């Protein structure tokens, strides 16, 4: 139980840091200088390409490009990877059973359980696809300010309700994780005898839900006091064309060409 609490605390901390990675958007790097609307469309296009192919080479290209772009966007590789690795890691845990569940040519046997070649390919493809998509999507979140994202989504005529829901989820997830982390930290700081029961866990969850609800009410009150009336407004942005944006479009075009070559 103690380890579970500590694991949840660590996961909450990692998730919280992932969302808080917007701080990178203030650096003067490559992707930070790409127009937010172009970046948004480009990244969604790349994700579309990634989910419509099973080619490992294509995934490898995407992952390498993502890390290269992170580097020229002044995000250190270690910092970049450490903020999103947990998503592919969890996806790997979820997909691992397919190593034995997928029927096919056995490559290894352990007490009558066959690990198949088809299973390994399936797991590998799935994992690589998740790494590629998350690495690319993380770049968007890490290098774009929330207000730029909102403005770009509105500019692309995404329905206002959808944008507002996205922003609320984004903000409330952040609050939820911050609260969970601080509660678990507080609990850990007062733990002397490390013995928890299911009853403790149930009480903790109840208390946590209540606390998050109160917190969210307070935050809503603060938002209301700052003029929020149900729809998030942002200042108009003046996006110009620059060498960063043009080279980014060229990169997307190159990826589309590789994808087409693979498909044909």
């Amino acid at each position, binding site marked *: 139980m103690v380890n579970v609490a500590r694991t949840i605390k660590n996961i909450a901390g990692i998730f919280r840091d992932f969302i*808080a990675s917007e701080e990178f958007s203030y650096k003067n790097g490559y992707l930070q200088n790409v127009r937010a609307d172009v970046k948004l469309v480009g990244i969604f296009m790349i994700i579309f390409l990634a989910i419509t192919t099973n080619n490992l080479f294509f995934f490898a290209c995407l992952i390498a490009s993502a890390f290269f772009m992170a580097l020229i966007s002044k995000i250190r590789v270690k910092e970049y990877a450490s903020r999103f690795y947990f998503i592919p890691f969890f996806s790997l845990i979820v997909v691992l059973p397919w190593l034995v569940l997928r029927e096919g040519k056995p490559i290894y046997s352990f007490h009558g359980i066959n690990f198949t070649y088809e299973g390994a390919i399936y797991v590998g493809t799935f994992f690589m696809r998740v790494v590629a998509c998350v690495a690319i999507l993380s770049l968007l979140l890490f290098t774009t*300010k929330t207000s730029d994202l909102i403005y770009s989504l509105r500019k692309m005529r995404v329905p206002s309700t959808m944008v507002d829901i996205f922003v609320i989820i984004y903000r409330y997830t952040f609050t939820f994780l911050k609260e969970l982390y601080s509660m678990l930290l507080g609990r850990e700081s007062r733990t002397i005898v490390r013995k928890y029961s299911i009853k403790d866990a149930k009480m903790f969850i109840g208390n946590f839900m209540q606390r998050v609800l109160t917190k969210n009410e307070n935050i809503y009150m603060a938002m209301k006091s700052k003029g929020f009336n149900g729809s998030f407004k*942002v200042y108009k942005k003046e996006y110009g064309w620059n060498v960063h944006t043009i080279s980014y479009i060229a990169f997307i075009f190159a990826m589309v060409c590789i994808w087409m070559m693979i498909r044909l």
Partner: protein
Amino acid sequence: MDDDKIIEARGIGYTYPDGTVAIEDAHFDLFKGERIAIVGPNGSGKSTLLKILSGLIKPTEGKIKFYGKEKIKEEEIRRKFGILLQNPDDVLFNVTVSEDLKFAPAQLAMPEKKFEEIFDYIVKLLELKNFLDKPPFRLSEGQKQRAAFASIITMMPEVIFLDEPFSSLDVITRKKIIDYINKLNENGVSIVTVLHDLQHVPFIADRVYLLNKKIVGEGEIREILGNADLLTENGMSIPPAVKIGMELGLNPLPITIDELIKKLNRWYTEK
């Protein structure tokens, strides 16, 4: 004079859904350009009253008029009132400090140029530059309080409500904020501050409401801070300057340490 009345509250009461009574039969008046402090012990209903007065929650009893009107559009209040809630974590709900500072002006459609001017000024004044790109949870409590205060000031409100604004601030920053608030007040901004520490009251208010579920005292600061019986009866500690002044039998009683020092200097010189 009534044209200058911003808030008029009568018979205000607030009971929480679980039956806990926070405030009973309270009254309150705020005129343009006034500096008012609401003081009281813990759990006396100060923060609840502040939320009612700023129109964030409705009282369960009593009537409240804003700008002489019982019914007023919420948007009108939001444009004019800036509220700094007690916990800076509630005020700083964006992912970075910079986004937090931009939030209110954008919601209120303040011209961007005007916002940028006040933004640059407040960032410099409160030395926020180094953590504009930081997520608020990475800041110290004092930094959070400064950032939360800045996020209210960028709205350029007509009335500022502050709930325990100095609790985590160092002396220098506290002085800077008090000076800035007073400068805003000189330009006609009304200030309502909730405090539990009476030492700051003389620097931030001209009139005081002492709240202990009900309004138990109301008047000029000297009148309230100098009333030791009223303060102790309601669980408040007497400010050190007043206490020393009482012991020495000074009349009128000093309410700040500076006043006390001046009086003592004069006393020594005369002796």
